[in-house]
């Protein structure tokens, strides 16, 4: 790799109007005339939309006609259209890496809309900087790496299950990793789904069984991701299989216990003396220290809660010859190799007690919507009888508080809309009217957002069924200490008067937030998050399932609040995206590899420790010690190149002379 002194650079500059997005602020003609005066520029042209077919043809034609050695497009951001224009560059017969983009839209015309002169000057600088780099660019060949023909889905809710099923049905061996002892996720806690009022478990359970039975899915419940290494096509994921304390039939067989392992009979839980609140029922029902959350769990294997277990051994005794219970179980680490991964990490309910004015956890009869789901569910702790927690009576007047902690810019709330609370609150209103004769739901709302297919119709239906709608956010809730009835204080903003309504029960449609594991897991996979902690898609419109980490995709609420249909749709999208590299069998890595300029390398080895990927090593060559790059490990960050005291590292596409040329072009080349 020799230093390129590209004296005969012939650069073409192509300016995009982007309609009025750029040309409405920046004087394109002036920039074009200026571009023609920049050293090495042999042609400057402009077009309304450079990314269009005619625009791209201009580039390809000019490369051929003018024998260009480099192309500069001044348009939007390389994060959007670098691939487009690289293709156009290649179409002209030039190596696609001889292309450089000047961002004169996203970081110029849009952010200096009212300063056309300054924006035009900045655009000239940007073009000059880009030309300086383009003049020094070199041919690069992307490296192809084979892709492991397996995938991983992290999160076994409805999104993760759908993604895993799609991948598996596309013939790809898929690891489905779920932190809790069963798949099913939040959806399994719901009673009915809107607007069709299907029973949630009835549509979910068959899917859970499909997942369990699918021979291409390796289901790893009670398992967490511990470490992730590698890159697209070749991720090495270390998983922690938490000590379950109970053997599956397969595990029992492996230990030589014939006909053993857990059959889900439940004899162990019956004799277990330890009683704990069941988190699946949000603490409203008991469970034992050896437990399953609910009868439909998949896999139907009991789990020991070792934090609660007193190791009395009664369960071991009751299990008998099956010998399924192993109270000495230890966590186990396993490593699997996968080509691509999908994160479907789900959500948690916002701790709405932080909005103390509504009295959740303080007043017995203030509950969250998820608790309502369990209380109204026939398989829930009350057998589907909605009762007041304070006295077990059936409530008749029930207030629903929407946007509880969401669309709330106070420090204690969440600024975003949780997107499904309107709809499930309408569903709850319907369920009350249906189940409790004479009961009236009062819905305190700011807006009703019934945005989906058949959702608005559902809203009308609930209105006609007799639900009362009051527009205005609830200010506070107080409790009558004797009756435990609640006073809801709000302003009816349509009537313009305050309301003090006495109700039997309040249901808070609490905001949602990323699940507790999201932060840790996203960091392991190198995925960014938005300010609210939801995982960041590669592009909200153009790549809503992808992330900026190649080979890692998103599904479901971890990317942002979604209802079930949207979650499933995105899961199918993510599965499709994740299967593409696997089916292609190889991926091209951007050739931004570090190279050692061996004649400059002193073999000091300082770079070796800088590399976070252990891609660098010292080797003996021609009697001296020099650094060597393992390209397959190098991800092209350039941290080594930013440190080498001898300037001996050539960071392809971001080489020192290229960057220095950009700095010089801006600061020294600006005389006009």
């Amino acid at each position, binding site marked *: 790799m020799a230093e390129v002194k590209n004296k005969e650079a012939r650069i073409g500059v192509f300016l995009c109007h982007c309609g009025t997005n750029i040309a409405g602020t920046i004087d394109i003609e002036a920039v074009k005339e200026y571009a023609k005066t920049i050293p090495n520029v042999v042609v400057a042209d402009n077009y309304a939309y450079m990314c269009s077919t005619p625009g791209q043809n201009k580039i390809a034609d000019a490369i051929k006609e003018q024998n260009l050695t480099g192309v500069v497009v001044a348009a939007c*951001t390389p994060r959007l259209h670098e691939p487009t224009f690289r293709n156009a560059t290649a179409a002209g017969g030039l190596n696609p890496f001889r292309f450089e983009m000047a961002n004169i839209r*996203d970081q110029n015309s849009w952010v200096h*809309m009212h300063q056309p002169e300054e924006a035009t000057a900045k655009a000239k600088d940007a073009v000059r900087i880009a030309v300086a780099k383009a003049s020094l660019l070199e041919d690069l060949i992307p490296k192809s790496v084979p892709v492991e023909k397996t995938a991983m889905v992290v999160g076994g809710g409805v999104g993760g299950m759908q993604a895993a099923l799609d991948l598996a049905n596309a013939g790809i061996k898929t690891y489905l990793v779920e932190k809790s002892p069963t798949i099913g996720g939040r959806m399994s806690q719901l009673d009915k789904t809107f607007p069709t009022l299907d029973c949630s478990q009835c549509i979910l359970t068959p899917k859970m069984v499909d997942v369990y039975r699918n021979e291409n899915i390796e289901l790893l419940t009670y398992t967490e991701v511990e470490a992730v290494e590698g890159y697209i096509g070749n991720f090495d994921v270390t998983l922690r299989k938490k000590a379950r304390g109970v053997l599956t039939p397969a595990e029992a067989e492996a230990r030589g216990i014939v006909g053993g392992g857990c059959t889900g009979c439940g004899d162990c839980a019956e004799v277990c003396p330890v009683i704990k609140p069941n988190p699946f029922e949000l603490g409203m029902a008991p469970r034992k220290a050896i437990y399953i959350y609910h009868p439909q769990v998949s896999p139907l294997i009991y789990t020991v809660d070792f934090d609660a277990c007193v190791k009395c051994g009664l369960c071991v005794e009751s299990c008998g010859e099956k010998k399924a219970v192993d109270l000495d179980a230890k966590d186990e680490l396993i490593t699997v190799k996968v080509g691509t991964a999908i994160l479907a990490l789900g959500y948690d309910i916002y701790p709405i007690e932080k909005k103390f004015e509504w009295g959740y956890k303080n007043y017995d009869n203030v509950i969250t919507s998820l608790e309502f789901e369990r209380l109204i569910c026939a398989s829930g702790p009350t057998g589907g009888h909605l009762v007041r927690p304070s006295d077990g009576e059936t409530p008749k007047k029930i207030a629903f508080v929407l946007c509880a902690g969401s669309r709330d810019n106070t420090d204690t709330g969440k600024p975003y809309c949780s997107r499904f609370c309107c709809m499930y609150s309408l569903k709850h209103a319907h369920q009350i009217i249906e189940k409790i004769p004479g009961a009236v739901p009062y819905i305190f709302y700011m807006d009703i957002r019934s945005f989906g297919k058949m959702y608005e119709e559902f809203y009308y239906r609930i209105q006609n069924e007799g639900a009362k709608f009051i527009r205005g956010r609830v200010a506070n809730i107080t409790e009558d200490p004797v009756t435990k009835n609640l006073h809801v204080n709000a302003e009816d903003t349509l009537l313009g008067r305050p309301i003090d309504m006495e109700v039997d029960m309040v249901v808070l449609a609490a905001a949602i937030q990323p699940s507790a594991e999201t932060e840790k897991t996203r960091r392991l996979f190198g995925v960014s998050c938005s300010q609210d902690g939801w995982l960041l898609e590669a592009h909200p419109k153009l790549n809503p399932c992808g992330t*900026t980490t190649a080979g890692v995709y998103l599904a479901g609420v971890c990317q942002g609040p979604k209802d079930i249909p949207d979650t499933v749709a995105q899961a199918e999208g993510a599965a499709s995206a994740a299967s593409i590299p696997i089916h292609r069998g190889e991926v091209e890595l951007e050739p931004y590899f570090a190279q050692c300029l061996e004649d400059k390398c002193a073999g000091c080895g300082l770079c070796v420790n800088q590399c976070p*990927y252990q891609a660098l090593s010292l080797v003996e060559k021609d009697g001296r010690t020099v650094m060597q790059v393992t390209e397959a490990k190098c991800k092209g*960050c350039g941290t080594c190149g930013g*440190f080498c005291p001898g300037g001996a590292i050539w*960071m392809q596409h971001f080489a020192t002379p290229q960057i220095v040329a950009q700095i010089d072009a801006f600061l*020294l080349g600006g005389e006009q």
Partner: protein
Amino acid sequence: MADENWKPKIIAIICNWCSYAGADLAGGARIQYPPDIRAIRVMCTGRIDPLFILKAFQDGADGVLVSGCHFGDCHYLEGNYKAAKRMFLLKSVLKNIGLDDKRLRMTFVSASEGAKWGSVMTDVVKTINELGPSPLNEFAR
């Protein structure tokens, strides 16, 4: 240096994954900020050789901004930590050669912080305007 027409020359070297994306997001959101900064994109702030920054000051830059991912969010695991370390050391060098170390700034702007990018831009320009032209300017060229 009492040139009334003086405009600060500020160069920003920013990482592709967080700050460049954040800057793009500011554009999408049409967040307005002063146009006195020119950005150079690198894949990671870890790529930034302190010599680039010294070169920029030598060339006459009045200010240099280095912006990357938040700690823990680096696309390359730890490039931003290394960059922060280098910038910290470089600041002491700047002081020793008579440059106010406020002329070099390192910020952390994520891909979702368009608004923050706007306020960082505004703030950097304000700082450099207050400091005035770089004393190295007379040696430049």
